[in-house]
C-alpha cells in the first residue's frame, strides 16, 4: 500500500505538468503511467502549441485566440476554460523555456510561431515537427527533480471511493502482475485519449480511454463524447502504417491537397462562417504561407472536421488516390522557392523520415497519400472550468480526458497548450483540496471485488482471445460510428456493443501474470467498451451535424442543438443515461469579444 496526497494517473504533458504544480505546492505526489516515463502519447504531437504571444504577428492576442477557439468548437465549449486557455497559454510556454525547452526562433531571437488550421494568426510555438517530444522531455527532465514519485508501467483498474469521495486507486504493475493500492486524498486524471476504439487511428496502444472509463464508473460525468476528431491527414499506405499522423504542419508550410484529377478540391467548398478568412485563389494562399499579413489562409487550413469531410467526399466520389486516400503535395513549393528540398527537410524533418523509411516516398519530390484517421476526442470528464474538479469530490482531470475546452471540435495546436494550462490548474487545485480535506479510508470490499474481476480471465485459459474482441470492436466503431454517421448504423452498433459485453464475460488468457500483453488487453477491453458506448449513445442523441459530428440523416446544424451539451452518467441500475445540459453561459464581456472578432 502506497500513501500520497495526490495521485496523478498518466505521465503525458498534462499529468507531468499537474504533478510538477502539486509538488511545488508542497504535497506528496505520485505519478502512475502505463509506459516508461517520457513515452506517453504526447510525444507524437508534431505541429506545435497554440499561444497568442504575437511574436510573428503582433495583431494576435488572447481575445483573437479566444474567438478562434470558440468558433472552432461551434460554441459548445465552456467559455471559462477557453478564457483560461487563451490568457494563460503564453506564460505556460515561456515557463517551458525557463525549464530548458528550445523552441525554433524568429529572426529577432524570439519564439517562432507557425500557421495552423483555424488560427487567424501564426500562433503555434514549435520545434520543427517534434514539438510534443520537446514538451514531454522538458517536463520530464524538470519534473524528476521536483520530488514526485513515478510508478512506471503500471495500470490503474479502479478508482476507490468512500462515501462518494476519492480514497485511492487500485492498479497492478505490468512487469510483475501484482496488485497495488495507492491511498490518496485526490486523484488527477490525465490519461489522454480513446483512439484505440477505432481501427484506423493515430493513437498508440495506451489510448484505450482508461481515464474516461475509470471516472465514469466512479460516478463522474462524460460530456461531449459524440465529438471524436478524425484528423484529415493520416498515412494510408502501406497497410501497416495506416492511420499514422501526417502533421497539419505540412499544410501550414504550404502543402496542398489534390484529387486523382490533380485538382485542388478544397477551394470548392468553403463554409460560410469562414468565407471572409479564406484565400480567394492559390496565389493569395501562397502569400499567406509566406507570411503576408494582408493575405487570407489557403482552404487546406480550414478546421479539421471540414477538411476531413472534403477528403472523404473526394474518395467516395471515386477521385481518390490508388490506396484510398487523396494526395498531399508539399514538393510543389519548389516552383516558388529555391532549395525547396532543404527547406522541407528542415521544417518537417520527421515527416521526411517517416515517409522515406516507412513508405519509401521522398516528400520533397513525390506526393503523399493521405486520408482521415481517428485522432482526438473532444469529449471527456466534465469538470468545473476554474478548478478542473469533476462532480466526484477529489477527482480532477486535465488534458484530452477532459471535456470543455474544445466543444464540438478542437483546433490544431490547442491540445499541447491545453496540457500545460489545465495541467497546472488541476495540480494547483488538487493540492488546495488535499490541504483542506483529510484522507478517507479505503474500502476493502471494493478492492476485493475489482481484483477478482480482473483476475478472472486466467480461470478461462480456453476462453476467447481478447485480441479478437478488440479487433471486432474497433471495426464496429470505425464502420458504424465513424466519420459519417446515421441512426440506423449507430443503433446496430449498440446491439453489437452488447454482444461484445457478453463475449467479454468469456474472455480468457494463457500464461502467467508477468508482462502478459494478452491479459493487459483483456483488462483494457471494458474501458474501450464504456467509451464506445458513450460515443455511440451521445452521437445518436445529437440529431444534427456540428463540428466533428456529421450525421448523414441530419446534415445541417440545428439552432436548438447548439444550446446543450450531452452528458453520459451511470444510473443506479448500472445502465448508461445520456441527458442534455444547457451550455455554460458566456459572460457579457466575453460575448463582446466574440462580436468584436466577427
Amino acid at each position, binding site marked *: 500500500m502506497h500513501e500520497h496526497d495526490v495521485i496523478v494517473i498518466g505521465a503525458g504533458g498534462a499529468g507531468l505538468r499537474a504533478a510538477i504544480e502539486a509538488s511545488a505546492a508542497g504535497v506528496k505526489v505520485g505519478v502512475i503511467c502505463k509506459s516508461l516515463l517520457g513515452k506517453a502519447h504526447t510525444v507524437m504531437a508534431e505541429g506545435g502549441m497554440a499561444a497568442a504571444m504575437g511574436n510573428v504577428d503582433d495583431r494576435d492576442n488572447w481575445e483573437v485566440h479566444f474567438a478562434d477557439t470558440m468558433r472552432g468548437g461551434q460554441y459548445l465549449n465552456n467559455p471559462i476554460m477557453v478564457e483560461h486557455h487563451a490568457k494563460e497559454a503564453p506564460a505556460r510556454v515561456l515557463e517551458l523555456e525557463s525549464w530548458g525547452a528550445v523552441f525554433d526562433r524568429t529572426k529577432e531571437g524570439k519564439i517562432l510561431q507557425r500557421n495552423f488550421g483555424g488560427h487567424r494568426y501564426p500562433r503555434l510555438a514549435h520545434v520543427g515537427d517534434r514539438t510534443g517530444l520537446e514538451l514531454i522531455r522538458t517536463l520530464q527532465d524538470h519534473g524528476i527533480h521536483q520530488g514526485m514519485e513515478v510508478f512506471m508501467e503500471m495500470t490503474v483498474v479502479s478508482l476507490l471511493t468512500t462515501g462518494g469521495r476519492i480514497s485511492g486507486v487500485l492498479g497492478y504493475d505490468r512487469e510483475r502482475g501484482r496488485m497495488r493500492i495507492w491511498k490518496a486524498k485526490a486523484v488527477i486524471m490525465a490519461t489522454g485519449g480513446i483512439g484505440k476504439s477505432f481501427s484506423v487511428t493515430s493513437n498508440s496502444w495506451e489510448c484505450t480511454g482508461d481515464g474516461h472509463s475509470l471516472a465514469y464508473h466512479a460516478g463522474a460525468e462524460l460530456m461531449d463524447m459524440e465529438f471524436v476528431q478524425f484528423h484529415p491527414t493520416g498515412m494510408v499506405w502501406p497497410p501497416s502504417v495506416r492511420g499514422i499522423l501526417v502533421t497539419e504542419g505540412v499544410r501550414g508550410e504550404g502543402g496542398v491537397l489534390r484529387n486523382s484529377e490533380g485538382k485542388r478540391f478544397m477551394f470548392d467548398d468553403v463554409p460560410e462562417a469562414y468565407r471572409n478568412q479564406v484565400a480567394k485563389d492559390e496565389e493569395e494562399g501562397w502569400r499567406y504561407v509566406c507570411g503576408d499579413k494582408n493575405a487570407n489562409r489557403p482552404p487546406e487550413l480550414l478546421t479539421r472536421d471540414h477538411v476531413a469531410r472534403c477528403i472523404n467526399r473526394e474518395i467516395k466520389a471515386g477521385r481518390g488516390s490508388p490506396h484510398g486516400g487523396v494526395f498531399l503535395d508539399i514538393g510543389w513549393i519548389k516552383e516558388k522557392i529555391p532549395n525547396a528540398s532543404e527547406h522541407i527537410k528542415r521544417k518537417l524533418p520527421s515527416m521526411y523520415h517517416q515517409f522515406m523509411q516507412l513508405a519509401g516516398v521522398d516528400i520533397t519530390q513525390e506526393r503523399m497519400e493521405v486520408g482521415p484517421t481517428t485522432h482526438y476526442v473532444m469529449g471527456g470528464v466534465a469538470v468545473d472550468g476554474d478548478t478542473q474538479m469533476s462532480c466526484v469530490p477529489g477527482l480532477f482531470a486535465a488534458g484530452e480526458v477532459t471535456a470543455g475546452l474544445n466543444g464540438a471540435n478542437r483546433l490544431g495546436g490547442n491540445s499541447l497548450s491545453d496540457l500545460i494550462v489545465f495541467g497546472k490548474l488541476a495540480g494547483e487545485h488538487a493540492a488546495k483540496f488535499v490541504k483542506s480535506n483529510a484522507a478517507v479510508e479505503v474500502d476493502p470490499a471494493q478492492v476485493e471485488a475489482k481484483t477478482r474481476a480482473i483476475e478472472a480471465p486466467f480461470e478461462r485459459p480456453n476462453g476467447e482471445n481478447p485480441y479478437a474482441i478488440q479487433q471486432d470492436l474497433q471495426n464496429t466503431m470505425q464502420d458504424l460510428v465513424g466519420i459519417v454517421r446515421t441512426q440506423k448504423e449507430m443503433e446496430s452498433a449498440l446491439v453489437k456493443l452488447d454482444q461484445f459485453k457478453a463475449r467479454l464475460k468469456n474472455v480468457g488468457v494463457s500464461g502467467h501474470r508477468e508482462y502478459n500483453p494478452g*491479459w493487459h488487453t483483456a483488462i483494457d477491453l471494458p474501458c474501450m467498451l464504456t467509451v464506445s458506448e458513450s460515443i455511440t449513445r451521445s452521437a445518436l442523441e445529437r440529431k444534427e451535424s456540428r463540428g466533428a459530428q456529421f450525421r448523414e440523416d441530419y446534415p445541417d446544424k440545428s439552432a436548438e442543438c447548439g444550446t446543450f451539451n450531452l452528458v453520459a452518467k451511470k444510473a443506479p441500475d448500472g445502465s448508461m443515461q445520456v441527458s442534455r445540459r444547457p451550455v455554460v453561459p458566456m459572460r457579457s464581456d466575453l460575448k463582446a469579444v466574440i462580436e468584436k472578432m466577427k
Partner: protein
Amino acid sequence: MDPSRRVQFRIWRGDKNGGAFQNYEMNVSEGMVVLDCVHRIQAEQAPDLACRWNCKAGKCGSCSAEINGKPCLMCMTRMDTLPPDQVVTVEPMRSFPSIRDLVTDVSWNFRVKKKIKPFKPRKPDNADGSWTMFQEDIDRVQEFRKCIECFLCQDVCHVVRDHHKEEEFIGPRFLMYTAALEMHPLDTEDRLADLKDRDGIGYCNITKCCTKVCPEHIGITDNAIIPMKERVVDQFYDPLTRLFRMFKGK
C-alpha cells in the same frame, strides 16, 4: 515483394532466469515492419509474447531490440530491408537485464539522468520573462534534443555491454544529455568536473558505435562527446589553465 511470402522468425523468449529462441512463421506483405510481425505473432500465435511499443513511427523509442544482431527500432525496420529467404532473429537489448521476452529493465538510464545537474538558466533577458536566442545559437542543442531515449546507444556501447561499467560511466545517451545542457545558451551550471570524475567520460574511446545505431542520426560522438572531452581537457589538463588556477587558488 511477393504478398504471400512466408518468413521464419526466431524470437527470444525468456526472463531473468534464462530463455531460448522460439520459431514462428507467418506471411509478410508489402510495407510491413518487424514490429507488425511481432504484433501479428502476438495476436495469433503467442498472446503472452512481451514487447514494448507505443508510437509505431520512430518517435517514442520504446520498441528497441536487436534484429539479426543489430540494435534498432522494430517499428522502423522494414521487412524488405532484411535479407530475403533468411530467418529473422529478434532478441531484446542484451546490455540490460531481462524482464521478459523482448522487454528489458532499462531503469539504470532513469537513475543516471537524475544524477545529472539540472538546467539552470540565467536571468531572463527581457521584462516579460523571455530570453533572446538566435536560431544559429541553438541548432546544435536542438540536434541533441531530437533524442527519443530508445537507449540503443547505451545498448551498443562496449563500456556498458562488455565491461559493465554502469556505476562509473553514464553512457553515450547521457554524455550527450550533459552536452545539450552545457551547450544550452541559457544554462549557467558547470558539469565538467562531474563528467571527468563521476560520469567516466574518459572511458569513451570514440569507436562511434553509438552514432551508428542512433535512429535519429544524431552525431553523438562527433558533435557531443568529443567537444565535451575537449572541454574537460581544457579545464583540467591544459597547463596554462592549471597555472592560472593555481594562482587563483582554485
